[in-house]
């Protein structure tokens, strides 16, 4: 018998409020390295908020998040937790790459410019090296011919693939996807999912918020269903997606499929 590998992401009793609204309610989740974790759930259930807490675009109100064993957002000093500085938070964010629903490519930079921006300005890598790596990434997402295209000159699917390449250029340990195909025309969904499938096969740890249940079934190692800021159900995709135990999960899945 082998020991299961230590989880790369641990969320423990994570709680987040916006005013009186409880966006996350004691969410606990562990993710093993090299696995794909899918998160499904109705709109407003806290899926995005959870991802945003993982890369500290939101501050959590209570609970704890460990990435690679390192406490996120705080440093423990004796019996107290000290908030980290802007620079330290920026450094911790390097562990995660984020892909947004609305792509959020830098509008004033070309595809290549978007991809090398982080490596050159944040990691201080030589421009020539960064460009070579960026071209390899563009080839990987099938967009070598778009190196000089501005975001406005690309389709949504192409923009999202560049956004994935931009995140990968920082060599993150974990990739976070927040409904990466929800803003796309139906015929463009496939090209983005293909890139993600390829990434999962390469052994990248991925946390994917998605309504693409087919993708979840095929690629995910584990699926959680969230509602009202809580994890309602968790298990292997075959179980959660095909024979859900909870009534709310069943309702949601039949609503998405219809």
């Amino acid at each position: 018998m082998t020991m299961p590998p230590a989880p790369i992401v641990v969320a423990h009793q994570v709680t987040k409020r916006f005013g009186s609204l409880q966006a996350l309610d004691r969410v606990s989740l562990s993710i093993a390295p090299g696995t794909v974790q899918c998160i499904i759930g109705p709109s407003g259930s806290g899926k995005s908020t959870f991802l945003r807490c993982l890369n500290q675009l939101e501050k959590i109100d209570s609970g704890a998040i460990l990435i690679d064993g390192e406490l996120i957002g705080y440093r423990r000093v004796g019996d107290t937790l000290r908030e980290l500085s802007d620079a330290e938070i920026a450094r911790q964010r390097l562990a995660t790459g984020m892909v947004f629903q609305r792509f959020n490519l830098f509008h004033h930079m070309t595809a290549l410019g978007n991809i090398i921006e982080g490596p050159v300005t944040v990691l201080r890598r030589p421009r020539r090296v960064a460009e070579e790596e960026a071209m390899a990434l563009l080839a990987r997402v099938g967009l070598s011919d778009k190196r000089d295209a501005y975001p406005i000159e690309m389709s949504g699917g192409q923009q999202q693939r560049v956004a994935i390449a931009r995140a990968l250029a920082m060599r993150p340990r974990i990739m976070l996807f927040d409904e990466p195909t929800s803003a796309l025309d139906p015929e463009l969904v496939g090209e983005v999912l293909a890139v993600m499938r390829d990434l999962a096969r390469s052994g990248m740890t991925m946390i994917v918020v998605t309504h693409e249940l087919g993708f979840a079934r095929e690629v995910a190692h584990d699926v959680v269903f969230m509602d009202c800021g809580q994890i309602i159900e968790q298990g292997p995709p075959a179980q959660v997606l095909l024979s859900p135990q909870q009534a709310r999960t069943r309702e949601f899945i039949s609503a998405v499929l219809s």
Partner: protein
Amino acid sequence: MGGDSAARPAPTELERLAGLTIVPHRYYGRWVAAAIILLLFAWVVKAFAEGQIAWKVVGQFLTAPAILNGLVNTVIMTACAMALGIVLGVLFAIMYMSPNPVLRGSALFYIWFFRGTPLLLQLLLWFNLALVFPRIGIPGLIEFRTIDVITPFVATLLGLGMNQGAYTAEVVRSGILSVDLGQTEAAKSIGMNRLTTLRRIILPQAMRVIIPPVGNEFISMVKLTSIASVIQYSEILRNAQTIYYANARVIELLIVAAIWYLAVVTLLQVGQFFLERFFSRGRGERRIRQKVGRNKAAGGQA
């Protein structure tokens, strides 16, 4: 298909319509307006040509050393005051948007004070600073007589620059607000800190919104420098005045100054055009322009 067209007479009627020559609508109002304006213009030109203006004097003083010297001073002051104004504007816009209440409060106070008082009054205040603080510097270390430090140049620069800073701060702030929050989040997600995000991602995109009003203010500044003549800064208008006090060629010298102001402003407008085009990259304006051009071409062929 041939049988169909015999059964329906409509296509032939449409075909006849399509073959007719198009006569553009005639805008008689435009012709009338153009005629009136041309007449007025001719009248003004005639009046100036026959009026009591010695055009030779205008030509003679256009390149007089004192005038050129004033022109250089005007241009230098415009550039320095705008540079100070833009630096202060960016600084105070960032302070205004900072989560730190002290920084935010200082920015608010600065904008409130410098927008709330007349520029002329500010100039006079700076120029007369010696009345309040006869000596300035770091006590014990280094000290100057205020009169030596606050020359007309320095007083004008501080007056115009700090006033401009208050206006530019508002322009920069609205530029920053115009950039989608998703851009900041994407920058954070690749590990950028706040200042790098501002410098690399937000400000370059805010420029598209900032450049047109700042361009206008640059042009205003060229002309605003003329009020520095009241505190003896020898810009072009003041030097023109000095000359006409001596030779009484008032209108001629005012025309000389006007010609130079127009020349400088025209140059600035050309510069503004190219700057705007540069900062609109990736915004599709070039593409749209090309598309319109292509459509026109297609329309022309049809």
